[in-house]
């Protein structure tokens, strides 16, 4: 029962974050939001008993891809100035 509750909560949180990403005007907030969705997804993978996938998702989805997207945004802003 606890697992189902956590799963439901994380799913609704991810969907809410997705809608927020679509509606927001700030592009860096959107990048941080995608990283947050990856973090929720890694907890979901852990609940589904796939710790390998959870590790990959936490390392690549939450840390690396977020950092790369933010780095590209900063690069583009500096070159347009």
């Amino acid at each position, binding site marked *: 029962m606890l697992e189902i509750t956590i799963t439901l909560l994380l*799913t609704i949180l991810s969907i809410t974050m997705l809608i927020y990403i679509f509606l927001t005007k700030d592009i860096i907030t959107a990048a941080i939001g995608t990283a947050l969705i990856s973090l929720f997804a890694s907890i979901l993978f852990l609940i589904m008993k796939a710790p390998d996938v959870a*590790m990959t998702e936490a390392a690549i989805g939450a840390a690396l891809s977020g950092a*790369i997207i933010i*780095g590209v945004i*900063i690069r583009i802003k500096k070159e347009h100035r």
Partner: protein
Amino acid sequence: MKKILILMIFSFLAVSLMLFFMQINSSKSSMQSISGDYYLTSNAKDFNIPNVVTSIVTQYRGYDTIGEITILFLSIIGVFMLIKTTGFSEISKLLQEPGTIVHTATVILFPIIMLFGAYIIINGHLSPGGGFQGGAIIGSGMLLLFLAGDKKELNRTATHIVESISVSIILLIGLLGIYYLNAFFANFLYSLGTFGSIISGGIIPIIYILIGVKVTVEFFHLSEYLLRS
């Protein structure tokens, strides 16, 4: 009002999707159960390691692993081509000067992250994890160095050479499998070791450590070229 309506519709969709996936999980299809039962039953006597996922990734599905390595390599080449490397003199103009909190946290956290990644790579055949996961952890831990404003230059030629040598040794091990047992990536080391110890499983730990080295170097290059050049 409109946003709340959209939110309610999406939440309903999410809950129904979740219930649908749980339904699938309880009733397995026939193909899934055949291959899964084969892996679960024959893994222990074939390779003598507890982690079935590792034996699938490095042995039963070795070709797929080579494909994944190639995809990573191609994506890194794409980044190299897209980004104009201006040399080290212009490095870290992109990032702001770090504060005291970031600097102190990096000093404490960085060695722990490195150690944890190395543990996951070396214990890939005993516990969940392996080369890809540990390499991703170490590679994203290197990001902390850039955020903390580390100005040390890394010899890029040396890291490229390390990466190429590790891939070459992986392919050489695969070809040795053809030479000894007539199959690519065949486990040609006959002493499989005792069940559950670090040195067990034949060539599996060797391949996974080499994959870990390669993935680490590639993720490090990716973030370094994007953030520091």
